[in-house]
């Protein structure tokens, strides 16, 4: 099983004592303001020469899409990033149609948006393309969308699963973003799901138990771990 770690912003560090993982995720899946400039990718590559850089991308507005495509074009000369984790249907289409360039993986938001339509037709054929390295799942429900050969491409997200996110960020005061969301996850209590976490503009919940069950049901291709200053709930999925 491949091992991956999600970094928080460009200043993110792999915890002391840990060996650099095979894949390092940088960027943001919930906010386009967290997309790193090319210089940040270069810096991270220097800092973690043995890790493959995966650019984690959100749903993209037109300005963010244009800026990201420019970043990818600039990075192509240096082979950066090595993979793009895509959550926007348009970006997925654009990158898949272009050929060449970095490998792609389908982020959990895009996987959720495609849902059961991934089980057949052109959507399935696109996802089975060798260019698509994997498809993220973070719950038993998202896993249930994946059938047959797609189950060999599971990238398991842990220890949090996605509940929802907004583009009206609570951390953005007076129209300005101070990137306070990078400070870590806030613990919330909901009458609906019990304990949940506010991670920037996203609501997440502990999926340790579900992640363990996913590892029992499929051979996970990649384990993508997210860490933060806030203490994650006890229990991590058992590696195979």
């Amino acid at each position, binding site marked *: 099983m491949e091992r991956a770690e999600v970094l928080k912003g460009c200043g993110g560090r792999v915890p002391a004592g840990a060996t650099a993982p095979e894949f390092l995720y940088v960027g943001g899946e919930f906010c386009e303001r967290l997309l790193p400039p090319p210089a940040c990718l270069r810096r991270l590559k220097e800092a973690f020469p043995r890790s493959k850089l995966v650019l984690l991308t959100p*749903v*993209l*507005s*037109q*300005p*963010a*899409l244009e800026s990201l495509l420019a970043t990818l074009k600039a990075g192509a000369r240096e082979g950066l990033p090595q993979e793009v984790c895509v959550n*926007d*249907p*348009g*970006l997925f*289409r*654009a990158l898949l149609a272009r050929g060449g360039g970095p490998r792609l993986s389908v982020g959990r*938001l895009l996987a*959720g*948006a*495609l*849902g*059961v*339509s991934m*089980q*057949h*037709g*052109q*959507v399935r054929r696109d996802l089975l393309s060798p260019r698509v390295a994997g498809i993220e799942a973070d*719950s038993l*429900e998202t896993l249930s969308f994946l*059938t047959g050969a797609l189950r060999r491409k599971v990238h398991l997200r842990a220890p949090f*699963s*996605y*509940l*929802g*996110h*907004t*583009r*009206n960020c*609570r951390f953005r005061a007076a129209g300005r973003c101070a990137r306070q969301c990078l400070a870590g996850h*806030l*613990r*919330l*209590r*909901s*009458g*609906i*799901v019990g304990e*949940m976490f*506010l991670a920037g503009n996203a*609501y997440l919940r502990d999926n340790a138990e579900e992640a363990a069950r996913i590892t029992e049901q499929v051979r996970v291709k990649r384990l993508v771990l997210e860490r933060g200053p806030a203490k994650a709930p006890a229990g991590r999925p058992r590696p195979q």
Partner: protein
Amino acid sequence: MKIICGVNGLSEAGRLAPYADELYFGVSFVENHRKWYPWQNLRTLGEAAELVSLAHGAGRKVLFAANELYPRASFSRDMRNIEKVLALGPDGVIARDMNLLGRLKRNGYGGEVCLSSTAICFNSETLDLFSGLGVSSVVLPQHLKAAEWRRVLRRRPGTRFEVFFYPDCYCPNMDGLCVYHDVNRTPEPRNCWKPYFLGGKKEFMRKPPIRERYLEFYRMARLGAERVKIARDAGVGERIRTAVFVRELADRIKKGTGASEFLRSVELDIWNGRKS
């Protein structure tokens, strides 16, 4: 700007028709974005036939909502049901499933194909993806800002689009991606309206302030939104009151009212109890 209004049952269609330019509906036997709200769907094919006939008799266009994702196991059955409804002659379909859109295109469907707001179309590449599947108009996601959509229109001028009436219909989280709204699988979940606690303090999932939502509606109208959508959620009386109010707002915008003046007039309307 035309008003398109959701219809939940035959009895209310006749009441809504004089106030709306267009109507839309879903049926219980084709999953749509009202899965947990059974009363918001027509129950039978016969009811759908009557609604289409009633709308056309009143000179109104009518669209059919088939805006969910359809699994492989039941796709043939779902497709047959969708085709049965389309054979009744609604003027278009609201959809998001790429396989469904592809099939409609291959079958040479000639009506309007309107992309659901749940398809998260935020940029020109997504628009191209769905246009390639036969989509001819788009319902904009609620979280897409007018300033961002303007950039898409610059790239794809002439795109036909519609918006929800944001002051009334605005999800705190991004619709089409939200798991939280029905995570507990209960009828009429509305989870996003319920409070949560942060450090013991009660909070709610945030929407932009009402003033900002009116302003976004104004900006979208100025950008050329073809339709404004009044969703199926409220009672029929409330939907009629909203339709009357929205038509007045649309007329003010059409007359060239400036943004500040528009907001002042809305504040006066709210003050006078015309809108909650």
